Structures are given as C-alpha cells and as structure tokens.
C-alpha cells in the first residue's frame, strides 16, 4: 500500500480514472452503460460480482476490457462438471521428455498481481469448487505448493448460466451472499445498437475490440487504499442511517410497512435473508456511487440505484414464490422505495 499524501487530491485523480474507465470500456462495449457503471462501483468498492445474462451478450469481452482498463492481470476459467478445486490451483501435465510435472494453475499462473479472476458458468462447477472460491473471495488467499498465496488486488467475477438446469449445481445461499453484487447483463434495448453489434465488423473480433481499450488506466496497486479512502471520505448522515434501516425492515417484513403485492401473501413471502453483511455492502456501494457522482454525502438515490444489484439476491423467498422470484423481488424492492419515506 502506498502512502497517500493528500486524500482529496488523490481521490480526484482516481475519479478522473474512474470516468476514463467507464468511457473507454463503453466505447468498446456498446449498449451496456449501466452494467459498466455498476462494475466500476464494484471495482472501487472492492467487491466480487456475479454476472447473469443470456449467452453471447458480451460478458467475457466486457470483463476482459475492464481488466485491461484497470490494468491488472486477468485470468479466466470455465466451470465444468468434472472441474475440481485442484484444477484451479495446479496444472498437472507431462513434459516433452515424458515426465509428469505440476505447474501453477490458472489461479496462480499470474502470481499475486492477479486483479480479475473470471469464473465462467460457475453453476456448472461442483460445490467443492464453490467452497474454494468462497475462501478466495472472503480471504483473498489460497494455499498451494505448501505456502499461502495472497491476492491483495483480486476481484472475482463469476457468470451464472441460467438457461440450462441439468448438470448444474445451484450456488448455496452463503455463496451468493458473499457476492457484492449480482448484475444482470441485458440484451441492449436500443435497436440501432443491436444493429451495430450485428453488422459492424468492429464488434466481430473480440480480441481486437479489447485491444482498443487503453491499457492500465488505473494503478491497481493503489486501488485498495483508494477504496478505503472513499469509504472514509463519503459521509452517511443520521437521516440516511434511519432511511437505510427502514428500507432493510421493509424488505424483511414487508407486511409491517404496508407493502402489498398482487396475489402474494405478504406474511409468507420473505423467509429471510437481507443479511447485515448485505446491508453493509449496500452502504458501501452507495458511498462509491455518491463519490462517482462527485458528492461527499450519500443520498437515498445512491441506495436506490444499487439496491437491486446488491440486495435482491440476498432476499430468500418462501418456496411457493421462488418460481416467480425475479418479478417478485423486483416488485418488492420497488415497493420498499415507494413506501419508505425519505428523509
């Protein structure tokens, strides 16, 4: 960690860097401005992200572009049913002279500078792999070759395939709770953007597309300190604390706040979830968003902007309602913001 001489001036440099990242990545990946914005928030909040979306909307390209812009090392692995934890850490193979040899696997190959680790189709991997990943996410360290590897700059991005259900292992609640955000990567709405994506040859070669993004717009080594400075520098007032607590209550016990959803027994709807860790993540994300907006105070708007991505996957519904989870949780979050008074 470097010594920060003057937090304010340094932070304004970082703010310029954050704006540059968003601009450059958005130039390469069109039609995903909101996702890029949320990823930037996650980067400056040092949180791990679970991406959800259809296949082929550009999740991998987006993450590669982001990793290139941030300037750290990038590694990826694809989840398969036979993937074992050791496959992440070690690479066992035969050398040219026919001897077996064990080299560092994808996780260790880039050393401790690894800044973005992308786990594709995480729900195809087995629970053993999930648990390794949980430890990696929680402690940013892994034991291998009889020593401990630390990854101070690491951020895990995972992608969940939600099309197929066969031969998949659904992430346990504890694992999902550890993700800072769960971001939905949508198909671009704008028809002009869709047309460009299909017909503009620029978007056909993802390697060239990623190469367009300037390398290393940020100083990865300084990110943890900058993230800490943002959390200290952005103020959350007492009124905001009250508001956040009320929102939390509204999501956990919607019936007490008079929230009514169509065709839903509100007494039964929410089984649990919305953990204290989740709410602390929410405030963290809101602080970063306030900072990105150039403010030194958190507003209810900041909470509202990141609420669904940070909180929705932490709310556990009654099994009866689990099948309609998406629209119900969405409606619940919106109703909470419609009911809880601010300030």
């Amino acid at each position: 960690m470097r010594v920060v001489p003057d937090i304010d001036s340094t932070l304004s440099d970082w703010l310029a860097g954050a704006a540059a990242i968003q601009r450059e990545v958005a130039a390469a990946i069109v039609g995903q401005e909101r996702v890029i914005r949320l990823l930037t928030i996650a980067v400056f909040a040092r949180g791990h992200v679970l991406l959800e979306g259809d296949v082929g909307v550009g999740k991998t390209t987006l993450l590669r572009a982001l990793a290139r812009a941030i300037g750290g090392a990038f590694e990826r692995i694809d989840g398969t049913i036979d993937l074992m934890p050791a496959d992440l850490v070690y690479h066992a193979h035969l050398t040219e002279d026919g001897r077996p040899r064990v080299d560092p696997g994808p996780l260790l190959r880039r050393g401790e500078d690894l800044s973005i680790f992308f786990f594709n189709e995480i729900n195809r991997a087995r629970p053993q792999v999930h648990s390794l990943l949980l430890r990696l996410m929680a402690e940013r360290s892994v034991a291998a070759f009889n020593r401990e590897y630390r990854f101070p700059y690491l951020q895990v991005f995972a992608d969940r395939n939600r099309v197929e259900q066969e031969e998949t292992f659904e992430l346990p609640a504890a694992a999902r709770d550890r993700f800072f955000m769960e971001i939905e990567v949508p198909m671009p709405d704008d028809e002009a953007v869709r047309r460009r994506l299909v017909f503009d040859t620029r978007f056909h070669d993802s390697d060239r597309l990623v190469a367009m993004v300037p390398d290393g717009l940020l100083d990865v080594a300084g990110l943890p300190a900058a993230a800490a400075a943002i959390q200290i520098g952005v103020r959350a007032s007492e009124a905001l604390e009250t508001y956040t607590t009320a929102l939390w209550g509204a999501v956990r016990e919607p019936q007490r706040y008079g929230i009514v959803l169509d065709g839903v027994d509100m007494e039964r709807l929410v089984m649990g979830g919305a953990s204290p860790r989740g709410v602390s993540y929410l405030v963290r994300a809101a602080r970063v968003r306030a900072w990105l907006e150039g403010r030194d105070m958190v507003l209810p708007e900041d909470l509202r902007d990141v609420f669904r991505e940070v909180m929705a996957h932490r709310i556990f519904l009654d099994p009866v309602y689990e099948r309609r989870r998406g629209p119900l949780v969405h409606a619940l979050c919106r109703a909470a913001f419609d009911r809880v008074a601010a300030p």
Partner: protein
Amino acid sequence: MRTPAALVPALALILLVAAPAAAAAGVRSVTLAGPRPFGLFIGDAILLEADIVADPGFRVMTASLPRPGPVTYWLDLRSVAVEDGGVRDGAGHHRVRLEYQTFYAPLEPRALDIPSLTLTLNDGARSAEAVIPAWTFLTSPLRELRSGAGGDGGGPYLRPDVPPRPVDGTVGMLAAAGSGTALPLLLALNAWHRGWWPFRARARRPFMRALRVARLDLQMTGDAGAYRAALLAFHRAFDAAAGRRVLGDDVPVLLDAVPAFRPLRADIERFFEASRLAFFGADTAAAIDRLPPAALLALGRRLTAAEREAG
C-alpha cells in the same frame, strides 16, 4: 293435595286430644279478620288476617305455614306472610296474612268455606298449636245465567272501550328534528375532515396542509429543528402529490405526475438541494443559506396555488 286433605280429619282427632293442654301452654287466642263475607265473585282476591296472641317467646314456625299454590280445585293461596307484632300486655302478637283467590263459578248464590289451618308455634323448648278457623263466604254469579235479548255477546254487560289517552309527542318531535339537522351537519363535517366527496379536492391538496404546518413550525421557534420539520412537511406533500416517494432525482417524474408544477421546476430543485444539505449533508445552516425559511414559505404558497389550479 289429596293425601294431606285426607289426613286432616286424622290430625284433627289427635289435636282434639292434645289441644286443651297445648292451648293452655302457649297460644292464648286466635282471631280471624276478613273482608265482607258476601258479594264475592269469581276471580276475587280474599285477604284473611289471623291475629295470634301467644305466650312471649313463641314464634310461628315457618315450616308449618301453608305453601302458596292451589288449595282446592277452586281456591288458590297466592301468598303467605307472617308479621311479628312484638310483645304487648305480656303477650306475643303475631299476624298471619293469607291471600286467597277464588275461581268458583256459582250458578246461584252459594256459601263456600276456606278450610281451617293449624300453625305450630315454638319457643325453643315447647311448641303449641294455633288453629285458624275456617272462613265462610257467599259467592254469587256475575250475572243471570239465562241469556237476555242480546244473546251471549250483547246486553248491557259489554261496556264501551275507554278512549285512548292522548300522548304528548312534542319532546320526541323536537328531538327527531334536532338530530335530523345534526346528522347531515356531522356527515358534512366528517366528509370535510376525511376529504370525501364533495370535499374531494381538499384531499388532493397536500401542500395546503404542508404550508400550514410549515408556517406554524417556523413561527413557533424558527430554529434548525423547525426548519427541518418544515422541509419534512413539504417532502410528505410532494410524496402525496406524486403518489410515491419523491427523491431529489425524481423531480422529472413529479413534474410528469403534476404538470401544474412545471413552472416551479427551478424552485422545486432548489428545495431538494436544500433538503439534501439539511438531512444528508447534516449541514442545516448551508441549507438555510440555499433556501431561507421565507423562500420556503413563498415556494409553499406558489405550490398551494398551483395545486389548487390543478384541481
């Protein structure tokens, strides 16, 4: 009742033997008083009063009193009561009130007997018998039995109905009229209070109420707390106007919901900036600087005017 009636002669026989000694020991005299013993008709009540004079200390035993109920097929005993008259002239006085009712329907004047009764008196150690003698009276039919010229229902016996007594209804009419006027008045008051039709417009005027609250707050103290309370009142009014919670970023949504506020856009944005400073920046002084209380009230008045225009 038949069995006790059959027993009476037997008892009387026993009494005949014991009576002189017992009477000498306790009861000194029994006098019976009744109404006039003639001119009685079916259904008449007959009150007999027996005065028993006994030695001091004797009391009538309740168990020996007859129980109210039918005595014979034509005679009912309606009530029995014993009054202790106290001790006078060295003797205890007791009065037994017996109320009978006759149901005998005689075809011609006829003498009937109310049977005699024997009561037991006791002073704790000795007991004595007091015999209330039979009472004879003459009962007659109410009218001649051969029907007259008018037949069964006619004749001079059916009396005309008593005309109904007129009831004074002034008080009730006044009360009805009073509550009749009070009800619509109270209904109207309640409708006004709750903003029902035809006061619907009042419910849709949240800024009017907010302005009143804010004015009160700012006039009362005028400190930072009052300023924040006034801001809060307007926040709730904005929420009510838009039908949802309005945050600073939602001003365009608010203006879409209430187009009448469009000309006030700059002022409304200034309000939200001041509110952000006051509540989330925890800097009420800066907020007052941005939107002084006077300006806040002025904005409130313009919003009230706008909402009235909007209907």
